[in-house]
């Protein structure tokens, strides 16, 4: 292949010199990563730092009757052994509920289990030692006596009267329930020419970040300050939570986030063992480090997607969809995760199902139940893969039943591109989507007709290929409607501060964070463009609560759309300030001047007047030469939060082309396509790579990834040899296309793109496999992952 720079498209409003909007600018921070010179939290070493390892419950549910620590305390290198009861004197428990999820309930969760362990892997005792190895040696010497309790593992029976209640004070095992009805679903189904029903099952899976969760906490009693080096997506949120539960003021806590080895939503939650680390540092008055090992990651990193959705669709003979109905059940472990809760994924499924279509007859129920397994919470694309696979699975089953081409059925039902603004059946609001244009683009890009012909030709030779689609919508740029209105101290606004340094370069501090998405590049592009300097002259600083504007961080596809807009506005503000100084020096009107390529020029002629280094020199070192009363302000801060729309919905469509070996049940992914609309594309390469990476994560869900539990709540495959993740050899090349419908809620018009790939891929792959198997008379497979065993069972071969 050939690597080429694309040329900037002619974006009128943004088409200034130094316009980097719409260009594939390389990320400024990559060399340190390619040279092994990055600093991940797992690399951090501090003076007097000690390491902690945890004794974890081997049982899914057990009363802790005794913890024998004497031997461990005497072991070489061991500094302290701390039980849950001892640590509870330092850090308070928490409850993961939000007021806008009406009726959601959970129980207090401790940093280390007190009296009772509620899932296999919950920490029951901490051993702090001079090295991790010695801490683990110490753990081996702790004897915990357990009285095993009945484990509630099956979500289907969690609400049965005969099932034990995990938290008796709550009365039952129901965490949250939402019921929604819109239009007239009964009439829709009654009048339909056909009703198609199916039960979709989604396997529990997890994020498997390549760098496990890592934290170094350093309580300095002399300063009365806690500094936490933390691999997190939300430093300010964590600052608040560490302070709150340690009884500190927020300004006593500094969270520093440098390089993060993968996040995907895994690193945006409160983890009990991480709360234990900050508490241990406060207790022991020295830095404490914890890096989860891979086994610990599998039993404690949040899981996601364990849903069973019974669903139906009504359709008329002409293909018109008349109604949707879903009943979702999900088991989320013993606690709703703090502070975002474990009700959001089910809530999203209710919000998003049927979302691309005009049909407004909709009934939904979602129930979230407790169980004695690892906790579940928000992971990349939260709820989208499920809502999309259910909706699109039903659509393709209906198309097959009616004998209508699946793309054609979508054409007849997708919300028309000129039908906006409008609302979906769940009440979600769309500003401007482009389903039909995306579909047309995809149809051409993949040569759909040609592929269908190839499929038919090969079918005659006994080669079974399938084509599957998934139209989708994605929630991006969340406003306060996502968490803030429910009482969570999670910022939906974000800020950027830009400063002209003394040599004319620009420093930008931003509240959004970088975990590999390219945030630093996008922010630099926005600042350089708005201010008028070569991008090399912009340095971006992220991930430090002492030094960046208050903000939410990077999650829910918000960094570019929200952080980028704040940076854009800050760059413009600094430009105004600098031009005021230059005008004062040059005795000109600011409106007659501009900044281009790092030089103050005459706006009309482009004639160079003054270098930025000279502006800075005069303002910083010779302000005495400026007119009396004039004060140069070479630093500007701006904040941004979406206000007109609760969320900036994006949309798109994916297609998967697969070949199924009907003897082995193996699926070969031949090709994957995605056309999506994330509004203004700030950096095409970064958007495409977000889409590709997201699709591959979705493929993992469709074909490979599954946290397998037995009926006693034991995770059976908690290692990377048995838990399958997508590797290079099995993955297809992926073509990405774009349609651009900017949001009018910001000047840049950028929406998010981080989750679109993961949202659509599982449904597209499932539909493709079923398209391959349908002529063989196999019933549709609606349980993920679509393993060879499930495929062979559908074919009646095992």
């Amino acid at each position, binding site marked *: 292949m050939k690597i080429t720079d694309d040329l900037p498209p002619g974006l009128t409003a943004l088409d200034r010199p130094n316009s980097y909007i719409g260009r594939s600018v390389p990320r400024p921070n990559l060399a340190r990563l390619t040279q092994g010179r990055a600093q991940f939290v797992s690399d951090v070493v501090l003076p007097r730092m000690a390491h902690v390892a945890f004794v974890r419950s081997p049982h899914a549910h057990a009363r802790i009757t005794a913890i024998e620590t004497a031997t461990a305390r005497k072991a070489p290198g061991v500094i302290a052994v701390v039980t849950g009861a001892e640590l509870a004197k330092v850090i308070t428990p928490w409850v993961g509920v939000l007021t806008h999820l009406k009726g959601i309930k959970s129980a207090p969760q401790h940093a280390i289990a007190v009296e009772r362990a509620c899932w296999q892997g919950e920490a029951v005792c901490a051993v702090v030692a001079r090295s991790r190895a010695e801490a683990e040696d110490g753990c081996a010497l702790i004897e915990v006596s357990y009285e095993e309790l009945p484990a509630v593992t099956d979500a289907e029976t969690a609400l049965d009267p005969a099932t034990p209640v995990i938290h008796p004070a709550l009365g039952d095992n129901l965490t949250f329930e939402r019921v929604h009805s819109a239009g007239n679903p009964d009439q829709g189904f009654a009048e339909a020419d056909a009703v198609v029903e199916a039960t979709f099952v989604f396997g529990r899976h997890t994020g498997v970040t390549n760098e496990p969760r890592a934290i170094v906490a350093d309580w300095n009693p002399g300063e009365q300050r806690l500094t936490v080096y933390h691999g997190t997506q939300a430093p300010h949120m964590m600052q608040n939570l560490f302070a709150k539960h340690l009884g500190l003021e927020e300004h006593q806590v500094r969270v520093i986030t440098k390089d993060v080895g993968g996040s995907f939503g895994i690193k945006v939650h409160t983890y009990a063992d991480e709360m234990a680390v900050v508490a241990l540092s406060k207790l022991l008055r020295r830095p404490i480090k914890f890096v989860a090992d891979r086994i610990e990651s599998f039993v404690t990193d949040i899981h996601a997607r364990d849903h069973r959705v019974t669903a139906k669709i009504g359709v008329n003979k002409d293909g018109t969809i008349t109604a949707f109905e879903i009943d979702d059940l999900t088991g989320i472990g013993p606690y709703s995760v703090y502070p975002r809760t474990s009700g959001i994924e089910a809530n999203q499924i209710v919000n998003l199902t049927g979302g691309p279509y005009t049909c407004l007859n909709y009934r939904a129920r979602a129930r979230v139940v407790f169980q004695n397994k690892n906790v579940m919470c928000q992971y990349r694309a939260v709820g989208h893969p499920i809502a999309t696979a259910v909706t699109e699975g039903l659509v393709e089953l209906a198309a097959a039943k009616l004998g209508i081409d699946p793309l054609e059925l979508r054409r007849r039902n997708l919300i028309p591109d000129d039908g906006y603004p409008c609302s979906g059946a769940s009440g979600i609001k769309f500003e401007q989507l482009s389903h039909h244009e995306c579909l047309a683009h995809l149809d051409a890009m993949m040569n759909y007709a040609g592929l269908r012909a190839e499929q038919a030709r090969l079918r005659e030779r006994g080669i079974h290929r399938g084509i599957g689609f998934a139209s989708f919508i994605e929630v991006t740029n969340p406003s306060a409607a996502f968490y803030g209105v429910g009482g969570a101290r999670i910022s939906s606004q974000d800020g950027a501060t830009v400063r002209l340094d003394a040599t004319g370069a620009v420093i930008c501090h931003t509240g959004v964070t970088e975990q590999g998405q390219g945030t630093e590049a996008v922010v630099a592009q926005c600042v350089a463009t708005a201010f008028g300097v070569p991008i090399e002259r912009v340095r971006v600083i992220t991930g430090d609560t002492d030094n960046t504007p208050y903000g939410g961080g990077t999650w829910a596809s918000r960094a570019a759309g929200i952080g980028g807009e704040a940076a854009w506005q800050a760059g413009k503000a600094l430009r105004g300030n600098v031009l005021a100084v230059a005008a004062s020096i040059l005795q000109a009107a600011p409106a007659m001047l501009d900044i281009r390529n790092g030089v103050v020029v005459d706006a009309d002629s482009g004639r160079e007047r003054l270098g930025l280094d000279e502006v800075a020199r005069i303002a910083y070192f010779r302000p005495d030469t400026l007119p009396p009363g004039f004060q140069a302000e070479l630093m500007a801060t701006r904040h941004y939060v979406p206000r007109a729309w609760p969320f900036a919905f994006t949309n798109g469509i994916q297609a998967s082309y697969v070949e199924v070996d009907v003897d082995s049940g193996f699926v070969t992914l031949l090709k994957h396509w995605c056309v999506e609309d994330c509004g203004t594309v700030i950096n095409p390469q970064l958007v495409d790579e977000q889409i*590709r990476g997201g699709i591959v994560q979705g493929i993992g869900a469709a074909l490979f990834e599954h946290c397998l539990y037995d009926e006693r709540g034991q995770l059976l495959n908690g290692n990377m040899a048995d838990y399958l993740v997508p590797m*290079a050899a099995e993955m297809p090349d992926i073509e990405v296309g774009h349609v651009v419908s900017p949001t009018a809620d910001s000047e840049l018009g950028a929406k998010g793109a981080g989750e679109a790939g993961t949202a659509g891929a599982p449904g597209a792959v499932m539909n493709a496999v079923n398209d391959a198997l349908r002529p063989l008379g196999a019933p549709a497979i609606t349980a993920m992952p679509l393993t060879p065993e499930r495929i062979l069972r559908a074919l009646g071969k095992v």
Partner: protein
Amino acid sequence: MSERFHQVTITVNGEAVRERVDARQTIVDFLRETLSLTGSHVGCEHGVCGACTLRVDGVIVRGCLMLAVQCDGARVETIEGVSDAGEIADLQAAFEKRNALQCGFCTPGMLLAAQELLRSGRVPSREEIRTHLSGNYCRCTGYQAIVDAIESVAQHRAGAQR
């Protein structure tokens, strides 16, 4: 009972290092903890993810599956050494230009694995590249950009030789 601690001499990135090591310490932990060479990463500690890939006597190995004591007398090269020597500057540039890394945690291992494939001077097919990387886990990119970058370097190196 055999000795638990051993004196070893290992040539790390060209420097002779003499240290006493615990018999149970892996070479990647030795590099990271004793020598502060943190470019080699620890992802799974059971030989699956490839983040700890490094070179011992010219051959890539899993740093989590080899003990430091086994490296006594050996030549060990890490991403820091290979970078400073300029050996993979073209690969690194291609990865950066193609955005063949996102979080970058897998990248040192990925680069060393790629360099082993490309050392033969042959231009591998995309399938061969994918197969060669099948022991290196990347959660971020979906692999296509990595394959693109490696392919472009293979073609460029082959072209430069002609």
